[in-house]
């Protein structure tokens, strides 16, 4: 099954890349079939509980035999179901969404490759397979974020997404190497066994954990490597759904879950993880409260939700089941929110919420679906987000909340609850209620709800987000670690969370009510600009890293071309003149001979100097 999971979309990608650009219909069929294969295979694998393993030796590096291995655990197969479902929804949705796009065919192939890479990460049973999927995902995000040829900012945003995550991946690669060198193997079971056997020193484990987390922070957009995510909204909206729900950002948290023994082995690592998560929760939630671009609100919301997961995975104790649950339910409602936002953007012709308003009448289906998504994100019962968020907060509060990390995490979680409710309600009111703010000529306006092929994925995902809780509780026995203790709302925290959520919703409504054309975020006053700018982390990175790097590169280039090469040219030229003096035969040959001999002499002197030093 795991072979079919990875090979299915891989084949779809390969065919897609070879298709001519005009073969839209064929590309659509192949792409949707790829998504379908993943979904069906994952569902079968989940219920069959087969947990099969494949292993293929690809090379030997001395004593190290490198095997690429896949292993379909229950955790893997349930995440694969999410990936398949979202991929299928995105492929079906994109057929109409990109109907007028001349580069639709490569787009579909890239989506298939993206899904392949994510499944390689999900099913990986060795760190090299994991790394392959991990990096190919980075590539796909780059290709797809930069897809739109008419957006001048898209190429830059794409480069940023790849580079910022790649900076984290310096750590990820080195972390993998630390683990591989220590265990003499890259197979995950061998590495985990080496941890329990005490093969690694504690320094090695701390280093490996922190280095791996650098990669996770890049992929899952955690502070301080989160800056690519808001800019990545330059990509087509279905791609945002894919990146936020099923691939990229989910991959980071997934690795925190599957490789948890590595992170738990060092308290330093855990503390760093918890702190990064907690900071991200707050940055994300606060920025989502004030930005005007509907996609950026959702992007910051992703940061904050992923921050929950990272933060609680930075606590010791049994937090994996709850984190996995919220990862799944977040994936469903975030895919739903982005796809609905795509429909809204098509209808309004803009991303700016200031130019929307009153859309509930024109697009009732989108309205209902998006409402379900927002309620789930805010954590209102009985939607999926409620059950999973309660499990997360419960897991954080009950027994694992002592120590500095516990307090930091708890504070960030509690503060973010009303903020989440605030930004969800704000989006809801600004887009669907109040007077229409659209200034487009009537003939350009889209007529209401999107076409059927876009509506079906919305309805399916909306249904799923309503049912996620029920589905999770009924299939509890099938997932490792899921039980009545680990995933359930805890009565004491639940009451408080629901009260805070309602408080957040009411505050928004109160701020909005006085003038329905104005942004309720105006009550943030002077805090608004820094929040909109994401606390200037971007500007700081630009000033501290990006610009100095460019200056340095110009400097190095000058030094290399004029310094190193200058010496060579100078030596050549002076030999040339020397050769001229010696050149009695006037053939020119002596000059070349002089250059060669003196060049050889120079190099020879260097060599002798080396030898002298050596002996």
């Amino acid at each position, binding site marked *: 099954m795991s072979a079919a999971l990875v090979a299915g979309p891989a084949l779809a990608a390969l065919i897609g890349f070879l298709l001519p650009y005009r073969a839209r219909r064929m590309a659509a069929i192949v792409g949707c079939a790829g998504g379908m294969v993943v979904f069906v295979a994952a569902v079968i694998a989940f219920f069959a509980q087969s947990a099969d393993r494949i292993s293929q030796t690809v090379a030997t590096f001395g004593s190290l035999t490198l095997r690429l291995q896949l292993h379909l655990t229950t955790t893997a197969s349930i995440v694969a179901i999410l990936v398949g479902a979202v991929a299928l929804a995105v492929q079906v949705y994109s057929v109409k969404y990109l109907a007028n796009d001349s580069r639709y065919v490569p787009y579909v192939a890239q989506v298939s490759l993206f899904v392949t890479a994510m499944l390689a990460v999900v099913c990986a049973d060795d760190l090299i397979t994991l790394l392959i999927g991990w990096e190919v995902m980075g590539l796909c995000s780059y290709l797809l974020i930069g897809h739109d040829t008419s957006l001048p900012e898209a190429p830059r945003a794409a480069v940023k997404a790849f580079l910022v995550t790649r900076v984290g991946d310096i750590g990820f690669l080195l972390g993998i190497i630390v683990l591989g060198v220590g265990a003499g193997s890259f197979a995950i079971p061998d590495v985990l066994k080496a941890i329990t056997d005490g093969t690694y020193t504690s320094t090695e484990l701390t280093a490996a954990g922190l280095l791996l987390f650098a990669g996770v922070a890049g992929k899952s957009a955690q502070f301080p490597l989160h800056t690519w995510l808001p800019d990545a909204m330059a990509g087509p909206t279905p791609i945002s759904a894919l990146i936020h729900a099923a691939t990229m950002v989910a991959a980071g948290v997934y690795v925190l879950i599957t490789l948890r023994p590595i992170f738990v082995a060092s308290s330093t690592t855990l503390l760093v993880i918890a702190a990064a998560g907690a900071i991200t929760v707050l940055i994300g939630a606060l920025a989502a409260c004030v930005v005007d671009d509907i996609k950026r609100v959702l992007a910051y919301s992703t940061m904050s939700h992923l921050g929950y997961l990272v933060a609680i995975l930075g606590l010791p104790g049994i937090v994996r089941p709850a984190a996995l649950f919220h990862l799944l339910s977040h994936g469903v409602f975030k895919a739903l929110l982005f796809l609905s936002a795509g429909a809204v953007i098509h209808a309004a012709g803009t991303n700016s919420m200031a130019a929307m308003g009153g859309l509930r009448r024109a697009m009732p289906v989108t309205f209902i679906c998006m409402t379900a998504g927002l309620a789930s994100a805010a954590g209102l019962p009985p939607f999926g987000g409620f059950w999973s968020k309660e499990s997360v907060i419960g897991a954080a509060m009950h027994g694992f909340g002592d120590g500095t990390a516990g307090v930091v995490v708890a504070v960030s979680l509690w503060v973010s609850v009303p903020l989440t409710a605030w930004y969800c309600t704000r989006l809801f009111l600004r887009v669907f209620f109040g007077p229409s703010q659209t200034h487009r000529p009537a003939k350009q306006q889209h007529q209401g709800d999107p076409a059927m092929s876009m509506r079906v994925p919305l309805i399916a995902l909306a249904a799923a987000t309503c049912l996620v809780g029920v589905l999770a509780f009924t299939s509890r026995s099938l997932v490792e670690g899921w039980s009545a203790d680990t995933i359930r709302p805890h009565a004491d925290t639940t009451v408080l969370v629901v009260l805070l959520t309602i408080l957040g919703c009411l505050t928004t409504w109160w701020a909005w009510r006085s003038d329905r054309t104005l942004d309720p975020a105006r009550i943030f006053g002077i805090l608004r600009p820094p929040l909109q700018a994401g606390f200037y982390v971007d500007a700081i990175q630009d000033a501290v890293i990006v610009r100095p790097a460019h200056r340095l590169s110009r400097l190095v280039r000058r030094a290399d071309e004029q310094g190193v090469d200058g010496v060579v040219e100078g030596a050549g030229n002076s030999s040339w003149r020397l050769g001229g003096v010696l050149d009695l035969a006037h053939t020119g040959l002596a000059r070349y001979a002089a250059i060669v001999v003196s060049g050889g002499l120079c190099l020879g002197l*260097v060599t002798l100097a080396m030898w002298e030093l050596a002996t």
Partner: protein
Amino acid sequence: MTAGQTLLVFLLGGPATCALLILVVPARVAGRLSIAAASAMFVVSIALTADRNTAGSGTIDPWHEINLPWIASLESRLHLGVDGLSWPLIVLTSLLVLCCTIWLASVERVHNVRALLALIFALQFGMVGVFLALDTIVFFVFFELTLVPMYGVIAGWGGAKRAAAARKFVLYTLAGSVLLLTGVMWLLVEAGTSDMPLLAERAGDVARSAQLGIFAFLAVAFAVKSPLWPLHSWLPDAHTEAPTVGSVLLAGVLLKLGTYGLVRVGVTLAPQGAKHFAPVLAALGVVAIVVAAFVCLASDELKRLIAYSSVGHMGFVLLGIATLNEAGMQAAQVGNVSHGLITGLLFFCVGAVKSRLGSGQLASLGGLRMSAPRLAAVLGFAAIASFGLPGLAGFWGEAFAIYGAAQHGTVWWWAAAIVAAIGAALVVAYFLRMLRLVVTRQPTAGAVGMADVITDLRWGEVLVVAPLMTAILLIGLWPGVVLDATAGPVKQIVEGVAR
């Protein structure tokens, strides 16, 4: 004569015959004839794996060999053979020569194409000779033999400043060769033979101090060729001026003569010297990676950028060799092959871009994905392969050179590993910058010939790039295709160093 020996004769005699034959046949059949000949050579190079002798137990165990008397007074014999270390590079050479002949026959129109084809076959003769040589004198002779045709290719078909670039190339590398000859002769005097398998067995008998000197001479000579920073400055000029096929063979194969020589002659025959200088070599390799990346980040010309990127990639190969352990050495071998394929592909792409737009200035390019999407896709593929995306060929050489360095476990080697890993990220940065400027951004107002009328990838070009792309993907997913061959020799060499 065994079948294997026949193949070796074909492998050397074929290109030599073609080089002469191509000059006398009519111009209109020259292209087709050269493609047929190069294809035959490629098949022969693959066929070398058949029926191979794997029974030997020495440090150098050729699969097939020819051993004839040659210069009696020097006790030098014409000893030729192929083993796991040289075989991947021989296949690489034949594949790239085949691509070059297709390119000249069906893509690029050049003046006096027969002469250029003849030079390419002469070059193939020299390069294959280096890889087959099992005698240090023979090695040296072939090593020098490659210079002449390459000089001709650059000086005859290059860009505006071709004369100066060709001169610099030939004089600089010739200066390096002086040291190679010194090293080879010193070794001959010390060990009393120039036969490599014999030398490898007697490596322990040569005094340590002599080994240090010999290795120093050899290392600097090969460092010029590879090229290792700071002896690299002939390379950007040569590449910028060379015609497309010249750049492809220069980066694809000629640089490998340096790294191959360093392993086959330097490390194998003077192991104590290698052991002593390894930390220095590693440091220089790492500096090359970082310096080249920064230069590329500020580069403003497409071909020069690719040329400098080679300096960085060869830095990874040298780091791998310098580790002197099996993981790093294996990484260097696969790195050699993948760099040859990837940089060859990059230079073909750049040639295609420049022939369409007449310029390689980054400032004047843009929007290639709109005007020529297929060509843009191939260029993109080559770039991502070059920055070592896992799953493509470039990854193994980089990641396992770092792994090999980390295996040493000391602060020095960990520092090398970390700087190399940071360098690998910088490589991504400059390739993405290049792709943004050439492929994805909107064409600038003053862009040269950026109208919609430029042709996308032509069939001739597809025939050139398709085999290279396939090979890059194949090695990316199954590095064993190279590493299974090199594993045996690498093991022997590493044990030789440890002795």
